[in-house]
């Protein structure tokens, strides 16, 4: 493997990412999958990096899953997205930051379509006006939330309490970076590092002390191809996809997996549990699974956030092996403890930051 070759490609695929004043749009599904991640993003951006990040309460789904599942027609998807843009315009922001990879892909696709077919944009503008009375400006800058963390990876590193380094051996943790398909596969120029050798997560991993693994099935889908999973009869394909990846990465003995898509951590995490239940097969070391994280969770761990505040207890493949390697202290008894003395339910220490 020649790293220089990859660096040459990475240098070609860089993009402009706004410096501040972000209009953040959440994912439909992430808060059910790993509820601490988006909250961690907001805490990092607002408290650690002191950036202006705005969320609009009227923001809705972008319809990306429905669009890619052939349920929502493209013009409907465009009109819904146009409404999100109008919310951004109304709030006085210009830099759109979606949390979801599929949203990012859909926004990118729509803006590109409008660029090439301005008459379509005009039609959508009319439709939105007729349906809601709203008007909009297009975002000046569109970046996925992982792009933004990538941009500030060095700043996060300067505040790091822990590194992606095995405290017992001093060796970098071996990290599989899994990039959501809709991040750059549709528009390689819109992703850091392009589609074949994406660097958006690799850049974070390297900056925070880890080492990225390049394994043969690195480009393979996580198993959340919408038609694989959303059509119940196809779910065998979904788990087969994930298994293909696990088998391929296993010889490289990864310590952890980092992801930037709503579905990927869910499926890479849950299917490891299912495969173990079905076949008694585990892919990590010492009979353990390979812990799977979102990039916000990893950033949070690096910054010293409490693992249970980050919601790592929601993972079906235990994350403790990585916490132990990084030297992060945690209280096992607190892992599933939702009660607090005043009788209120504790959801996450990151809520309301």
């Amino acid at each position, binding site marked *: *493997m*020649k790293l*220089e*070759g*990859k660096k*040459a*490609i990475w240098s070609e695929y860089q993009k402009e990412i706004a410096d501040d004043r972000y209009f953040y749009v959440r994912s439909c599904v992430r808060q059910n999958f790993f509820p601490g991640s988006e909250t961690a993003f907001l805490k990092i951006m607002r408290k650690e990096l002191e950036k202006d990040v705005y969320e609009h309460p009227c923001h809705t789904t972008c319809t990306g899953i429905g669009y890619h599942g052939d349920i929502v027609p493209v013009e409907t998807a465009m009109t819904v997205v146009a409404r999100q843009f109008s919310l951004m315009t109304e709030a006085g922001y210009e830099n759109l930051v979606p949390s979801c990879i599929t949203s990012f892909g859909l926004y990118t696709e729509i803006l590109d379509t409008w660029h090439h077919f301005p008459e379509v944009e005009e039609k959508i503008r009319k439709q939105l006006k007729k349906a809601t009375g709203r008007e909009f400006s297009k975002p000046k800058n569109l970046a996925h939330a992982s792009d933004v963390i990538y941009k500030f990876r060095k700043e996060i590193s300067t505040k790091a309490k822990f590194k992606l380094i095995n405290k017992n051996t001093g060796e970098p943790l071996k990290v599989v970076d899994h990039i959501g398909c809709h991040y750059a596969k549709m528009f390689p120029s819109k992703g850091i590092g*392009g*589609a*074949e*050798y994406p660097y958006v997560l690799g850049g974070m991993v390297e900056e925070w002390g880890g080492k990225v693994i*390049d*394994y*043969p*099935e*690195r*480009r393979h889908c996580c198993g959340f191809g919408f038609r694989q999973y959303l059509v119940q009869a196809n779910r065998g394909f979904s788990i087969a996809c994930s298994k293909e990846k696990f088998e391929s990465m296993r*010889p*490289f003995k990864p310590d952890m997996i980092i992801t930037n898509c709503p579905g990927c951590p869910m499926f890479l995490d849950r299917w490891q549990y299912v495969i173990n239940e079905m076949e008694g097969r585990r892919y990590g070391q010492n009979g353990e699974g390979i812990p799977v994280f979102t990039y916000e969770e990893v950033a949070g761990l690096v910054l010293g956030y409490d693992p249970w505040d980050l919601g790592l207890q929601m993972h079906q493949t235990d994350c403790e092996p990585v916490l132990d390697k990084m030297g992060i202290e945690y209280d096992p008894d607190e892992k599933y403890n939702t009660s607090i003395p005043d009788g209120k339910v504790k959801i996450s220490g990151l809520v309301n930051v």
Partner: protein
Amino acid sequence: MEAAGQLAKEGFEVSLVEKDKETGGHIKDWYKLFPDRRNSSEVRDYLEKKVSSKSIRILTGTSIEKIISNKESFSLVTQDGTELKADAVIVATGFDLFKSARKEEYGYGIYDNVITSADLEAMFRKGKITMSDGMPPKTVGFVHCVGSRDEKAGNFYCSKLCCVTAVKQAIEVREHLPESKVFSFYMDMRMGGAYYEELYREAQEVWGINFIRGKVSEASESINNKIVIKVEDTLAGRPLKMELDLLVLMAGMEMSEGGNKIAELSGLKKGENRFFAPLDHHIANNLSSMKGVFYAGTCTAPMNITETISHARSAVSEVVNYFNNTNS
């Protein structure tokens, strides 16, 4: 070189400008030629002999930096400031091999054992085919159409020579490494030349090369440094995944950088394929859009050596006609 030699033979004073340190173009890097696998040095020797005429002034290691078109003559200035006066110009800037790293999915320049057809020729010339660890490969795969017939690469055209080159090289791999297994992944086998089809048949019948109809979608590297490829076997109708020791990319042909520079300097027209556009593809294939400027060889389209030499000779014929008509 052929055009220069022919012009000298016709009694013209010729200046031959070559950007490389030596003349010979791509042929000097090649091992043997298809379809008869004669040594490339034989053709190069022929061409060198051809330009050894006293009427030919050879300027190597320099390129044209300025072209001034006067009424019926040209003034060309080289990098070192030498001014060449000419009554006619033949553009013979040839081709560049497609830069295989542009097909990122194949990992050229990243994975140790992904090489190009040109790299393999260099190995043949050294007489040793090895992987990056110095060991001989046991399994070798050839990927056809790298940068040719590829909308994403911006090249719709067929480079024409890669299929037969792959067949030739596959045979040569088997000759050098009789124990090796060789696979060739193609879209179509375009054997449109004299004795090409025969060579293709020999490759299958005598050398046992496995030709698989399907485009390789991606290459990656296993923990054992093997190249893992994914391809669809379109005849069997099944996806295929296999490990290879060495993957050879059959790089296509593109307009040369030198040609592009000449096009910029002169305003000569280029076609949709970005090669120089002849005045008429059928009946004026050596003529350019500029009076007194002619084309020879692969600066207009992919050609094999036979076609290139014929094209160079016909360019000379057009130059002679041009002078006859100008002077009459």
